[in-house]
């Protein structure tokens, strides 16, 4: 099966910032992304869990974005502008995708 090179960018970010991030991604020309719920985690600011939480303040979400490699820089600039001053982790992996026309 024919596959095409792509980048898989995974951004773990605070929930109240998700909409700002996806808006920025969309502006940077990203054609699609997927948001996964995050149950808990730990980092420099300590451990946390969503259990029993009512406020979005104390939680994170994972935004996964598959893009053509040549668009990576635009995406990273956009993501970094949002994540820079906030809690969050950005990772990039090499990937292959089916149906390149979708990215």
């Amino acid at each position: 099966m024919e596959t095409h090179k792509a980048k898989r960018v995974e951004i773990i970010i605070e929930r109240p910032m998700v909409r700002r991030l996806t808006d920025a991604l969309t502006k940077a020309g990203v054609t699609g992304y997927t948001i996964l719920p995050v149950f808990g985690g730990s980092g420099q600011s300590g451990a946390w869990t969503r259990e029993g939480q009512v406020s979005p303040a104390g939680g994170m979400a994972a935004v996964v974005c598959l893009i053509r490699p040549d668009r990576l820089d635009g995406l990273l600039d956009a993501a970094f502008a949002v994540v820079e001053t906030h809690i969050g982790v950005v990772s990039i992996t090499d990937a292959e995708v089916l149906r390149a026309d979708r990215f």
Partner: protein
Amino acid sequence: MGLFELAASNLISPIILSFALGLAAALARSDLSVPEAAAKAISLYLLFAIGFKGGAGVAAHGLDGTLIGALAAGLVLSFAVPFVAFGLLRVLSKLSTIDAAAVAGHYGSISIVTFVAATSVLQSQAIASEGYMVAVAAVMEAPAILSALWIVARTGKAAEMDAGLVREILLNGSIVLLIGSFVIGWITGEEGLAQISSFIVAPFQGVLCLFLLDMGLVAGRGLRQSRGALGVGAVAFGCLMPPIGAAMGLAAGLLLGLSTGGVMLLMTLSASASYIAVPAAMRVALPEANPSVYLTLSLGVTFPFNLTLGIPLYLSAATLATGG
């Protein structure tokens, strides 16, 4: 009932004990937990019920001129309390400007569950109150955030404030649901209330118990994880600020000529600190502020303080002051 009897009877009510159970379970590291979706659903229920009942109350007893005054007073209190809180924090604690401002914003805003607990106490004492106090609560949620950001801006720090954030704050889910159900209750009145009272009135206290169990769990987990984040000064602030806020609410309530119950509720609103809407706004606007400081103070110190000692105190003070 005297202050001490009141405090004692309050302390052994199912809702306080449920909170204590949650707190104890979390501190003992039990794995007891409420799913996020269930906690959110319960909080939607509480907002809907309390808003609707407030609106139905207005429909039943009519509106006198004090509604506008009470809304205005709520606005002013929410704007003003953060400045007092900020000043007190600077005296009592060593928090940075930004942390202190963020905390101050929480204390100007309100905790709807504290409000609900106060209405429960009023109800059990058969003391009436203005139904529109729910609308006052809604109005007090947001302004304090602006005060906090203004304090930060004045000290030369930059807060991330954009049009999107203002809309988010004003159209925050809890404000919209509270106001919306208040209006629905008002429009449909006694008849509407009769249709759904076996949902929003009869089981209300019991649902509140489960919610307070969850709040105890969350507060306990927060206290355990943020050990050391709060100095003695900050904890002292968490217990001193509520009575100060309440005093401001008392003054406003007396000026407006509210009923004993109304004065007590305005005191409770001024005394309580937000733990839902403001933290989320602060994460966006003041990301450098440490969430474990403001969440722990609001939910781990001030919330239990108000629930146990504050509410009886405010009721006694309101009773004395209004001669009710």
